[in-house]
């Protein structure tokens, strides 16, 4: 009898252990939690997003994967062009028909807090260890200072500096390395520029993203953490703007007239500029344009004085509408497009996937289309990157920072002079965001 009871006890323990182990395994192997719940969740679900080209196509394909996993959910998709989408979204949210899940970016700075559901309870319920599941750096900005999670990331994009090896070789200058500084960058750009008039070869193109890099390159920033105070007049921020003003003056970066003569990607592809801030989202297009014109490579953007690589990231994720009538399906969708491996692999073709498994496994092994250049650096670059600083509610102030940039790089004013003219306006713009919240 004792022997029988012992066997029974061991058996019960084994069963319990197996059950526990199975549960953990499912949480680890299938974070999107679809296999069991897929058959249970049903009803209508409206997905609201925007964009274009291959990226939009990948989002539509991701929805198809969701439909396969959750066959009882009837998905309605609304995909629109990105321009002025905020206006549409404002109206749709106010009317309560903006959809159950809505595409969002953390650069909106909590603009829509009142509309979005806090996703923390869902994450806790499903025991998701996001730190282990997400690509490092991809999740920044989705959690408000008060701890509320506004959304989950799906993809991100950051920048490398693409350089024309032929121009470097011809000038006898060593290729840049990942530990270069912005002083090295400026010196290289000036040193490598040559020629006059239409034959001028510039050190760096006048890319629109440089304005976003400028405040950070010497350790400054455009505004403080809770964007209540402008910090444009911080000496380090000013130094960053001044660097680019000096590059224009030294003709190492195209002036306004030269910049308007042709798109900057075409300028780089045509061999008329030695360096180009290459966004991941445009890497394959640029590669196609370059073709076999010249040999080229990529390097991480330069480091700031503290040794941190300065980078800007664009992030896209999904949030749940607080008014959603089908929150379970909405959560299932968000989880799928954020963490599912198949979806992540799909995103890898056009962007950096949020799902670490796909980023490390699929994306890292990819090369920029038509080249031998590895995508790996884009993953590393994301870790320290700053979220695009001018999005959403900050956009009005962002326009004023843009005008400051124009004063320095187009009008030829010193950064200090330009800042004097704009700091109070920028401060008012920041104040107005908090007044309207």
């Amino acid at each position, binding site marked *: 009898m004792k022997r029988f009871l012992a066997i029974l006890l061991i058996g019960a323990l084994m069963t319990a252990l197996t059950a526990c182990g199975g549960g953990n395994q499912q949480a680890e192997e299938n974070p999107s939690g679809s296999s069991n719940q897929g058959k249970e969740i049903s009803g209508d679900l409206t997905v609201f997003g925007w964009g274009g080209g291959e990226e939009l196509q990948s989002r539509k394909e991701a929805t198809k994967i969701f439909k396969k996993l959750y066959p009882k959910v009837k998905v309605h998709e609304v995909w*629109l*062009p990105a321009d*002025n989408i905020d206006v549409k979204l404002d109206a*749709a949210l106010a*009317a309560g028909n903006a959809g159950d899940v809505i595409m969002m970016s953390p650069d909106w700075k909590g603009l829509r807090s009142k509309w979005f559901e806090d996703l923390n309870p869902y994450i806790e319920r499903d025991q998701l260890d996001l730190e282990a599941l997400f690509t490092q750096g991809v999740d920044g900005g989705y959690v408000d200072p008060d701890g509320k999670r506004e959304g989950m990331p799906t993809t991100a994009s950051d920048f490398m500096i693409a350089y024309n090896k032929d121009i470097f070789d011809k000038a006898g200058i060593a290729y840049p390395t990942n530990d270069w500084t912005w002083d090295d960058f400026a010196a290289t750009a000036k040193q490598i520029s040559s020629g006059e008039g239409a034959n001028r070869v510039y050190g760096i193109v006048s890319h629109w993203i440089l304005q976003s890099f400028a405040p950070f390159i010497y350790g400054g920033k455009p505004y403080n953490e809770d964007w209540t105070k402008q910090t444009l007049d911080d000496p380090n921020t000013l130094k960053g703007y001044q660097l680019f003003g000096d590059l224009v003056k030294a003709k190492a970066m195209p002036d306004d007239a030269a910049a308007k003569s042709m798109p900057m990607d075409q300028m780089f592809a045509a061999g008329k500029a030695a360096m180009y801030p290459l966004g991941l989202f445009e890497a394959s*297009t640029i590669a196609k344009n370059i073709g076999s014109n010249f040999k080229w490579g990529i390097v991480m953007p330069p480091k700031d004085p503290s040794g941190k690589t300065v980078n800007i990231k664009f992030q896209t994720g999904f949030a749940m509408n607080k008014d959603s009538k089908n929150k379970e399906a909405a959560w299932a969708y968000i989880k799928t497009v954020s963490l599912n491996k198949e979806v992540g692999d799909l995103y890898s073709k056009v962007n950096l996937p949020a799902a670490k498994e796909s980023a490390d496994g699929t994306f890292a092994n990819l090369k920029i289309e038509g080249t031998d250049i590895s995508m790996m650096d884009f993953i590393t670059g994301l870790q320290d990157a700053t979220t695009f600083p001018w999005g959403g509610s900050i956009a009005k102030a962002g326009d004023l920072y843009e005008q400051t940039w124009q004063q320095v790089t187009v009008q030829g004013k010193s950064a200090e002079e330009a800042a004097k003219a704009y700091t109070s306006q920028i401060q008012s713009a920041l104040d107005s965001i908090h007044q309207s919240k």
Partner: protein
Amino acid sequence: MEAYYKSKRTSDRIKTSLSYGVLTIIAVIFIFPFIWMLSTAFKIPSEAYTLPPKIIPNTFTWDNFVQGWQYADFTRYTWNTLIVTVLATLGTVLSASFVAYGFARFKSRYSGVLFTVVLATMMLPSQVTLVPTYLLFTKLGWLDTLKPLIIPSFFGGGAFNIFLLRQFFKTIPKDLDEAAYIDGANAFQIYYKILMPAIKPALITVGLMSVTFHWNDYMSPLIYLNSDQNFTLAIGLQFFQNSFGSSQIQMLMAVSLITVIPVLILFFIGQKYFVQGITMTGIKG
């Protein structure tokens, strides 16, 4: 005396030449973007951004038109745009002229106030009315249909058009109305049979402006439409730009050219009346 006239003639000639010279320069500046669009639409990709820019391409190609048109369902978008433009223009012309007729010919204690209220709507920024109108159309079940783009045109046709037509009606002598009234015509017959033919240039002006607005309108379709099958050309073009940016500028220009041609043709046909309509109402640039 002869010397005086000779000097005056010379001075007039110089003035005329100068005027024409300045006007020609301005005309070239205005038409240059269109010429550039036309030229780029026929270029191969490598020629799109050559420096210095070339107006006449070395290699002409039609591929941009074919490939660009095939990128999205532009045929459907054109059809939707056509439906919206034709019906909304019809609504605008009919209702604006009807309201303007009322303001021009009928007096009451409140007509002044009412007219001021109508004009005041021109001062309202569109953002102010956006959410209420969106809510209204949602309640009516019109969302994701072409109705919000068409039906409102039948309710007044816009303050500016009412103002323009009212001014035009006021230039027509009331004796015409009175003669028709004596002959037994009622108010609607006077409007329809006597005054409408008399204000043809103004109606064409309003019609042309309405066609241009509805054909090019991006915001309203973006706000009210959700499905690909209902999209208009402006939305399709924006999708195209979102997808390719400046990298396929030659295709973008080709599709833009196709979409702009109908409006251009219409303008050239109606420009005589357009100019007449604008000048006769006293609304000059």
